């Protein structure tokens, strides 16, 4: 009996060890990526504005641009990316097991994910949160006027919980009408089963386009929850963590300095010391990360600054037309802020 018990103990601890070592997989992601020649980037299986294949079969979106920026920084070629589409459940496993180098898949930054999964969030690409869409004719202009409303919501999402919290906190009643998929939710809203449709504000715009008369509905200004979305890397590889983190910071800094993919070549001649440092004319800030001096130049030239990426994928130049809101730079009333390059 005793012997058997010991054997089992040994077996299980061996298995636990095996699993444990895996999370430390591929300690030097940069070397592996350089050797492979392509960046393996985990994206969604289709999310409007964030990652979806276009008519030509190329991946496009705000999350995809993060992958392209990292590839531009590492290889000087934003096309050297292999996109691996992951669903919500397998995304963390794929990162932990080394199947992807970066996970850029509208993942909300939470304590649990940051501390217990052996992962690190490198920044915030989009400050998301739950919003409401409502029929214009109801004349409601704020979420605080929604007492007693019937609300269409997708089941199994955190949205359901957050909406309930919000209504309880404000002492209001609501009648949840739950659907399985986003298409059904839109259908329910359109058929008049509910007065209000709720979802992440990044997706409300996409849902609104699918209505037969989009102009009849408005999106209320309130955002009732915090859903910061950002790229994720494995814990324990600080060099790689820095690269992904600063790729995004470079895009934000570029927007702040007014450098775009179009004027980046002219800006190379700029006298502004901040610009010179970012573009690698003054000092070599790429070296400390294991990159070349023109790492940020490559990102801006090939992918663009954060504002360009935002406008192209989810903002005013895209069909989604999501306002910058809190995703504007800190200098323009938003909260997007990147540390200086110095």
């Amino acid at each position, binding site marked *: 009996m005793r012997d058997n018990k010991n054997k089992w103990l040994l077996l299980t601890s061996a298995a636990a060890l095996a699993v444990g070592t895996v999370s430390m997989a591929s300690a030097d992601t940069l070397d592996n990526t350089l050797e492979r020649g392509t960046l393996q980037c985990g994206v969604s299986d*289709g999310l409007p504005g964030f990652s979806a*294949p276009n008519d030509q079969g190329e991946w*496009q979106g705000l999350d995809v641009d993060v992958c392209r920026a990292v590839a531009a920084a590492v290889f000087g070629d934003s096309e050297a990316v292999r996109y691996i*589409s992951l669903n919500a*459940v397998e995304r963390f496993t794929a990162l932990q097991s*080394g199947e992807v180098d970066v996970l850029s898949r509208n993942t909300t930054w939470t304590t649990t994910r940051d501390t217990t999964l052996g992962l690190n969030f490198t920044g915030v690409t989009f400050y998301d949160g739950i919003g409401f869409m409502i029929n214009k004719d109801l004349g409601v202009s704020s979420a605080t006027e929604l007492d007693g409303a019937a609300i269409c919501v997708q089941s199994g999402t955190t949205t359901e919980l957050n909406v309930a919290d919000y209504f309880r906190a404000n002492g209001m009643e609501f009648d949840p009408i739950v659907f399985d998929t986003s*298409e059904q939710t839109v259908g329910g809203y359109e058929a008049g089963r509910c007065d209000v449709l709720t979802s992440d504000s990044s997706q409300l715009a996409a849902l609104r386009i*699918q209505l037969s008369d989009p102009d009849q509905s408005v999106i209320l200004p309130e955002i009732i929850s915090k859903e910061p979305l950002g790229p994720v890397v494995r814990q324990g590889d600080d060099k790689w963590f820095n690269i992904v983190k600063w790729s995004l910071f470079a895009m934000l800094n570029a927007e702040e300095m007014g450098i775009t993919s179009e004027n980046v070549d002219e800006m190379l001649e700029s006298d502004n010391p901040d610009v010179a440092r970012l573009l690698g004319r003054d000092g070599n800030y790429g070296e400390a990360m294991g990159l070349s001096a023109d790492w940020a130049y490559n990102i801006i030239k090939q992918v663009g600054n954060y504002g360009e990426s935002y406008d192209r994928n*989810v903002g005013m130049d895209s069909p989604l037309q999501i306002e910058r809101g809190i995703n504007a730079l800190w200098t323009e009333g938003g909260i997007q802020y990147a540390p200086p390059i110095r």
Partner: protein
Amino acid sequence: MTIQHKMIEARPAPKNTVGPLAWLRANLFSGPVNSVFTLLGFYLLYLLLVPTIEWAFIDADWIGTSRDDCSREGACWVFVNARIGQFIYGLYPRDEIWRVNLTFGVFAVLIAWLAIPRLPFKRWVALATLVVFPLLAFVLLYGGLFGLPLVQTHRWGGLMLTLVLAVVGMVGALPIGIVLALGRRSQMPIVKSFCVVFIEFWRGVPLITVLFMASVMLPLFLPTGVSVDRLIRAFIGITLFQSAYMAEVIRGGLQAIPRGQEEAAAALGMSYWLRMGLIVLPQALKMMIPGIVNTFISLFKDTTLVMIIGLFDLLGIVQAALSDSRWLGFSLEGYVFAAFMFWIFCFSMSRYSQYLERKLHTGHKR
């Protein structure tokens, strides 16, 4: 009294029992109750068909390049039109599509050769289909040899991926299934118990679980740096799963062959494999055609489950296309297209199996 020694000439049937009118009367309006039901049926059909046809054809938009070309009163086939290349080839590089076309062209010719009874060299063609073709298909689709650029499997998708998965699953599952079925009927305890455990295990878990484990759990147990291609994981999962089902279909067929057949063959001094290969299996397989085709069709449709491990099969690529912000809101068109493609393939498989049954019908049919 006259006795006629000649047969009375056959006369045409009475006027009111032939022709379309008579058929209508006999089949649709044979009494007041039936007449009412017929009319009700026609009315329901009218309610259903008219809006469908209006949506799909009359009000539909066919030509254009963007969503602005669609009036949104009927179907917007512009969406399917713009994406058709992607729906069929996935994200396969556009310049390399000839390789996919060639592969499936060769496959179609080989299958047609085997299916049309008059053509000669059946044995050689069958051998080529089973041995040479898979190698050829691999080299053509995956590349990396003979100067063909490498096309990694994450670029495969659409109808092409669905067909590849289905064909690999069918070709893999049938022989494994036969071996398992024979093993389960065997007298040898180890072989028998292995087969029983294998079959019952794989039949006892849903395919979605198998794929999910292969994609979420397997990478955690593999040593560092080793990763198995997702497509290979799907191949293995689907093949093992379907072979268990196939084994039970085949065992059912084997049991329908009278014991005397095998005993007679044994009396002639035939070995086990000769008895099985020449006497039992040819008779059994013939009777199993409906069951086997049934399994194949369900396998073909089950391939859509690979969506959950991030492979873009036909349905997956349609869904991905639906999330392109330039084409939001055309889910109905996308799903109708996918359903239509699946129907074409499943229906042709079903027709071919019926033809095969008629052809091989030698008195077993009951």
